[in-house]
C-alpha cells in the first residue's frame, strides 16, 4: 500500500511535469466539446418527419394546433391515421407521430390538459424539440381556456388575438432542449473518445517502463508486478476522473450547456465508463510487444469503435446493422445511459446499462490479467 502510493505519486509528478500531458488529458477533450458546440449549437441537422393523427374531427382550435406543428422549422408533417402511423414509424418512414385525441378542443377550451400522445421511434432527443414547442403552445391555449373560465365568447376573443400574433410565445416559456441535448450527447461522445485515448496513453506507461528497463529495477525492489499494475490503474482512474470533472465543469459553468442530467449522476456514469476504458487499455497493453505497437493497436481499436457507437457523429446516420454492432461497445452503453437520463429516467433505474459497463471493465481486465500472468519472461515482463 505504501509502495503503491509512492508509485502513484511518482507517476503523477512526472506526468504533470510534461506539457503534453496537460494538452492530451485536458485541452483536447475541451476542444472536442467546443467543436461539438459549434457543430450542434445552431442547427439540428435533418428535418424531423412527423405523422399527425387527428381524432378530434374538424374543429378549428385542433386544426390550428396541427398548423402550428406544420409551421415549426425543420419539421415535415404528414397526416395519417393511427394504424398506419405505427407502421410508418416502424418502417422508418416517419421519425415520430403526434396523436390529437378526441376532445382536444373541448379540453383546452376548459383549461384542462388535453389528450395528446407523442410516439417516437428513436429515443426522446429526436422528438424533444417538436414536443417542447407543442407543449408550450398547448400550455398557452389551455391557459387561455383557464382564464376564460368556461366562457366560450371570452375564449374566442382572446384566442383570436393570440392567433393573430402568430401564436407567439414568450421565449422564456420554452427552451429548445433538443439542440442542447444533442450538443450534450456529442460533447460526451468526444469526451469518451479522449478518455479512451488518455487511458491507453497512461496504461502504455507500463510498456514504456519496460522499454527503458526501469521496470526491471521496480520488480527487483520489494514491489510486486501486481502492485505495480494496480498502481498504474489507480493513477489512470484518477487522471480520468480529473478529466471528467474538468470537462463537465467547463461545459456546465463556462459554456453554460445544461445537459439535463444532474452533475453527480453524469459524473458517476462517466466514471463507470472510465473503468471499462482502463480495462480495454490493459487488454491492448497485454497483447502488445512494445509501446509503439500498443499505440497502433489503440488507434485501430478506439477510432472505429467510437465512430460506430456514435461518439463523433450522431448514430442515427449509420445503417441499422451498424447500430446493432454498436451495442457490443461500451461507448454505446454510456451514450444510451446519457440519453435515457436526459429523457428523465433515474440513475437507479438504469442498472442494466450500468451493470453492462461494469461487465465490460471486468471482462477486459480479467483477460488482461490472464495474459499478463502467463508471461514468464523478463523481456516480455510480468
Amino acid at each position: 500500500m505504501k509502495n503503491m502510493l509512492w508509485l502513484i505519486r511518482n507517476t503523477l509528478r512526472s506526468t504533470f511535469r510534461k506539457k503534453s500531458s496537460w494538452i492530451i488529458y485536458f485541452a483536447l477533450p475541451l476542444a472536442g466539446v467546443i467543436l461539438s458546440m459549434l457543430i450542434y449549437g445552431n442547427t439540428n441537422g435533418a428535418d424531423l418527419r412527423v405523422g399527425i393523427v387527428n381524432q378530434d374531427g374538424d374543429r378549428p382550435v385542433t386544426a390550428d394546433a396541427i398548423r402550428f406543428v406544420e409551421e415549426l422549422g425543420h419539421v415535415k408533417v404528414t397526416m395519417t391515421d393511427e394504424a398506419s402511423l405505427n407502421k410508418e414509424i416502424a418502417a422508418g418512414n416517419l421519425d415520430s407521430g403526434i396523436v390529437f385525441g378526441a376532445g382536444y378542443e373541448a379540453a383546452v377550451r376548459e383549461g384542462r390538459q388535453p389528450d395528446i400522445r407523442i410516439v417516437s421511434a428513436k429515443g426522446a432527443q429526436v422528438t424533444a424539440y417538436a414536443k417542447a414547442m407543442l407543449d408550450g403552445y398547448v400550455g398557452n391555449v389551455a391557459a387561455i381556456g383557464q382564464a376564460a373560465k368556461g366562457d366560450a365568447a371570452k375564449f374566442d376573443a382572446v384566442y383570436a388575438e393570440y392567433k393573430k400574433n402568430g401564436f407567439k410565445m414568450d421565449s422564456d416559456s420554452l427552451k429548445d432542449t433538443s439542440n442542447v441535448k444533442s450538443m450534450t450527447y456529442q460533447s460526451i461522445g468526444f469526451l469518451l473518445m479522449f478518455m479512451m485515448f488518455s487511458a491507453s496513453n497512461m496504461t502504455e506507461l507500463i510498456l514504456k517502463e519496460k522499454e527503458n528497463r526501469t521496470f526491471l529495477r521496480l520488480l527487483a525492489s520489494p514491489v510486486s508486478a501486481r502492485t505495480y499494475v494496480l498502481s498504474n490503474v489507480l493513477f489512470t482512474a484518477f487522471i480520468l476522473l480529473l478529466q471528467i470533472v474538468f470537462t463537465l465543469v467547463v461545459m456546465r459553468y463556462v459554456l453554460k450547456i445544461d445537459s439535463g442530467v444532474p452533475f453527480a449522476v453524469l459524473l458517476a456514469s462517466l466514471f463507470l465508463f472510465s473503468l471499462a476504458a482502463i480495462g480495454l487499455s490493459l487488454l491492448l497493453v497485454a497483447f502488445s510487444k512494445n509501446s509503439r505497437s500498443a499505440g497502433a493497436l489503440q488507434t485501430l481499436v478506439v477510432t472505429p469503435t467510437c465512430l460506430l457507437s456514435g461518439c463523433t457523429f450522431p448514430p442515427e446516420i449509420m445503417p441499422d446493422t451498424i447500430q446493432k454492432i454498436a451495442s457490443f461497445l461500451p461507448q454505446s452503453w454510456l451514450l444510451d445511459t446519457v440519453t435515457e437520463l436526459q429523457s428523465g429516467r433515474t440513475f437507479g433505474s438504469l442498472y442494466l446499462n450500468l451493470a453492462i459497463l461494469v461487465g465490460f471493465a471486468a471482462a477486459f481486465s480479467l483477460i488482461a490479467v490472464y495474459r499478463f500472468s502467463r508471461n514468464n519472461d523478463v523481456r516480455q515482463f510480468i
Partner: protein
Amino acid sequence: MNVLEIRNLTKKFDDFIAVDNMNLSVREGEIFGFLGANGAGKSTTINMVSSLLRTTKGEIELLGRNIAKHPKFAKSNIGIVPQDLAIYEEMTAYENVSFFAGLYGLRGSELKERTIEALDFVGLGDKHKSLPKNFSGGMKRRLNIACAIAHRPKLIIMDEPTVGIDPQSRNYILNSVRKLNRMGCTIIYTSHYMEEVEELCTRIAIVDHGKIIAEGSKEQLKSIITDTKEIWIAVKSEGAVDLESLKRLQGVTAVRLEDQTIKINSKAEINNLNWIIQQLIKDQVEIRSVEEQAPNLETVFLTLTGRNLRD
C-alpha cells in the same frame, strides 16, 4: 557465512537451457567475479537471483533464507545494477535515486540523506539537479549504480557496469566498487574486461554454456593450466613477422601480434623456444627481448572455454 548460495539452479527458455544445474556460493565480503562469454548465462543467473525470473529448477538462498519463500527479504537485501541502463531520462538524478530508494520504504530525511550519499558516492553530487538525458554515457552508468545502492543492500550485483564508457568514469566505478566492498558490501561483478576482474575480484567463477566450469581465487584458477605457457617476444619491426610459419611450429597453439610483441601460446611440455627464435632469425626479424609469461586469466579462460572472452 555465505551471502549467496545457489544449488542445482537451472533455467530453460522453452527447450534452450540457459543455466544448467549451477552450483555456486558467494562468501561475505567478497568481490566475486562472474566471467563468461556472450550468452554464457550470466545475466540469466543474476535475474533469477534478483527475483526477476522464475527458476526452472533449483534453489537460491540469500543470507541463509530461500528467496522464493522470503521474496521481500531477498529483494530488500539485494541491489542490482542492470546490464542495460535502467533510469528515467526525464527525471533528475536526485529524483531517480530517491524514487527507487523510496521503494525500499525509506522516507523523509532518511531518504534525503541516503539519496545524497549515493549520488556523492558515484561522484554525481553536484549534478543531482540535472536530467540524465544530458549526461555522458559514463555519468549515466554511475547514476545506474547510485540507484542500486541508496537502500544499502548487503549484496550488490553489477552486470557489466563499465561497458562503453570513458576511462575516467571507469576508474571512478572501479574505485567505488572497492569502497563499497570496504564498507561491508558483498559484490558480484560481471564484466567482459578481464583486466578489471583480475584487478578487482577476490574470487572468480567462469561460466560457459550455463555451467560453472571453474571457480576459485586468481591463483587457483591459474594453477589449473600448468600445461600451457605463453611466450612474449618483443620485436623491432612487425612487418617481417610471418605468423603463419610460427603457428606451424610444434606445440604452438595460438599466435598473435600486439604492440610490437609476438604473443605465442604453446603447450608447456614441448620446449620449442629454440625453433621459434630460429624461425624469427630466418625471417630477419630483430628480437629485442624474450620472456615467458606466467599464465593470466585470459589464457585460463581461453584454455577452459576454447573462446575469447570478447568476440
